[in-house]
């Protein structure tokens, strides 16, 4: 059989988890047996029909997949261009964000591995809620590390985790946000590695996490391909998603990665501006380094100390990004841009008004970039935006901002 060059069997990542120069396993020796065990358990599970059937069943009947692909006619009207905009409605998945696709997969795997305890980090609380939910569903004990500052900002999600039986542990070290919650969860895992599985919430961390989380999230892109063909009769011209750690973006991009004619755009958080110190635009202005077990783009100083990140959207507030995004940036497969807090805030309000959909502030970043991009798109263009989560959790933040402005 003749194989064309692009069918060549090039595995990404390679066996030791490297995406070119990125990825890998930069962890204390104590964790090496655990991540190797996880790697082999995951490889077995993904070929196992029983595992696949159980996962598919839960995703359909519990999570509510497939999530709709909705043509945002209201937004289209405001744009005034002859383009079609579709929203992949991950906000309609159980618990209100795409995070559940990954946590169901990982907790199912952990149970299969005989683990009795689940730990996770969370920033905005969405991943914590999704992990606590999956653990409750499958009857495993769950503890979630959350920066003390984030616990104050996201009280509702703290309560949701507690309601589903999880223990939320405040993290007081460092910046008291997501980065430090990850450090603390890794420390817990090093200590309790025998009976505990760490559910990482994004396409970050040591191998196999970036690959495994990508694969669990890829259901977003696979559904989108099928749905857009039905609705528009062809594949889209542009696919966009916000990027913090990058799991929702990877989930929707990955099944389109070989379609060279499709533009993939990852939208980072420029916070108060990439020229300030208050942003999370890791790929746009960061540089490669090692954090949380992998080589990837980071926000760091000259000496390799990790900088704090900032975004109005707590889920984007992270100074690292997935290693596979790093190689996509270098190869140009995905274009990465950044929009600031103000643009995200405006897009949040806009989509709420035009289509009655309150997006998460994270997802609002992708909508915001569409406003910038739309005028340059040819007529008849089809754009898909991954609407990664719903905005209920952000209503208080946005209400405060609106109040501040009316008072001025």
């Amino acid at each position, binding site marked *: 059989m003749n194989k064309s060059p692009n069918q060549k069997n090039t595995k990404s990542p390679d066996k*030791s988890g490297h995406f070119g120069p990125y990825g*890998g*396993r*930069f*962890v*204390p*020796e*104590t964790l*090496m*047996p*655990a991540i190797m065990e996880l790697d082999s358990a995951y490889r077995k599970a993904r070929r196992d029909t029983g595992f696949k059937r159980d996962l598919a069943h839960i995703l359909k009947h519990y999570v509510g997949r497939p999530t709709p692909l909705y043509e945002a006619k209201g937004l289209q009207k405001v744009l005034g261009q002859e383009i079609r905009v579709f929203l992949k409605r991950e906000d309609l998945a159980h618990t209100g964000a795409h995070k559940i696709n990954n946590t169901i997969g990982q907790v199912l795997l952990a149970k299969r591995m005989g683990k009795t305890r689940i730990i996770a980090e969370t920033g905005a609380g969405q991943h914590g809620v999704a992990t606590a939910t999956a653990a409750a569903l499958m009857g495993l004990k769950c503890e979630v590390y959350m920066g003390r500052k984030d616990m104050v900002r996201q009280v509702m999600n703290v309560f949701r985790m507690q309601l589903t039986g999880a223990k939320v542990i405040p993290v007081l*070290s*460092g910046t008291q946000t997501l*980065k*430090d919650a990850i*450090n603390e969860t*890794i*420390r817990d895992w*090093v*200590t309790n*590695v*025998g009976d505990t599985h760490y559910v990482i919430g994004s396409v970050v961390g040591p191998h196999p996490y970036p690959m495994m989380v990508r694969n669990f999230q890829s259901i977003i892109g696979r559904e989108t391909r099928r749905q857009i063909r039905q609705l528009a009769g062809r594949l889209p011209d542009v696919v966009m998603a916000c990027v913090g750690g990058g799991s929702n973006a990877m989930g929707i991009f990955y099944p389109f990665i070989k379609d060279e004619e499709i533009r993939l755009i990852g939208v980072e958080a420029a916070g108060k501006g990439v020229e300030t110190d208050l942003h999370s635009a890791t790929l746009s202005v960061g540089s490669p*380094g*090692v*954090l*949380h*077990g992998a080589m990837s783009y*980071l926000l*760091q100083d*000259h*000496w*390799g*100390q*990790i900088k704090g990140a900032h975004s109005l959207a707590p889920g984007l507030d992270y100074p690292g990004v997935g290693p596979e995004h790093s190689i996509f940036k270098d190869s140009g497969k995905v274009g990465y841009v950044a929009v600031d807090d103000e643009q995200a805030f405006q897009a949040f309000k806009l989509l709420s008004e035009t289509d009655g959909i309150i997006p998460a502030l994270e997802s609002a970043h992708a909508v915001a970039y569409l406003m910038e991009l739309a005028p340059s798109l040819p007529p008849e263009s089809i754009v898909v935006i991954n609407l990664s989560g719903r905005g209920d959790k952000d209503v208080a933040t946005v209400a405060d901002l609106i109040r501040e402005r009316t008072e001025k």
Partner: protein
Amino acid sequence: MNRIDRMFSQIRKGKEAALMPFITTGDPDIDTTEKLILEMDRQGANLIELGLPFSDPLADGPTIQTSSQRALRHNINAKDLFGMVRRVRKKTDIPLVLMGYYNPLLQYGLSTFAEDAAASGLDGTIIPDLPLEEAGQWIAAAKTRGLDNILLVAPNTSADRVRKIARVTQGFLYYVSVTGITGTRTELPAELYQGLNAIKQLTKKPVAVGFGISMPAQISGLAVITDGIIVGSAIIKLIEAHTIKEGDDLRAGPDLVKKVGEFVGELKEATKKGC
């Protein structure tokens, strides 16, 4: 023979284990670190581990985390550490090993880092987040400058893997006493002695044990079966207790160096007992 090898060959002849204190460079300030090295040397320490502070020390417990943060208030970096080692090297021949996370080395440039570290008089490195599989580039860079790269094994490392790691480690093999992070523990796991004995069967290189060891009583038990004993958090706690805080400013109290020295002296005595 480099300083580390020479030290272990002498230790193994005598009836004792090497005492290897860890301190964070620049906690509370770099001059104190310099004084501590000399004082610990006088009190019988056999090798000193110098922490290079990092913003995200994920293998460390609260004691060393806050110690790193104290050092980072003065933005202590690798250049400062090398400068301090260069000064102290004129006064002592004690083996000095840098313990630090990988990213600061990577950003400095691996080959320049190895060059500057060796030129300053450092003898080796321990990088807790750089396991065997990822360590190739650094080991190559370190080797050309005569620096040892010391690798770690843990209680859950398989015998096969211990053999592989022991073949590559230089100077000694660092045995992590517990599955966990750094920090003092009143009780060491019962399996520790068994674990250490098993490791000793797998390698002829010196084995040093660290994580959790804080008291002379623990040391005398361990000295029988190991070549070296690392004490970190217990010393850092003492440094913290003798640091004076004035507003945002931290400075060494009048007794800091003396108290740490006395403690190191006691620990050293314990390494000679039971043998």
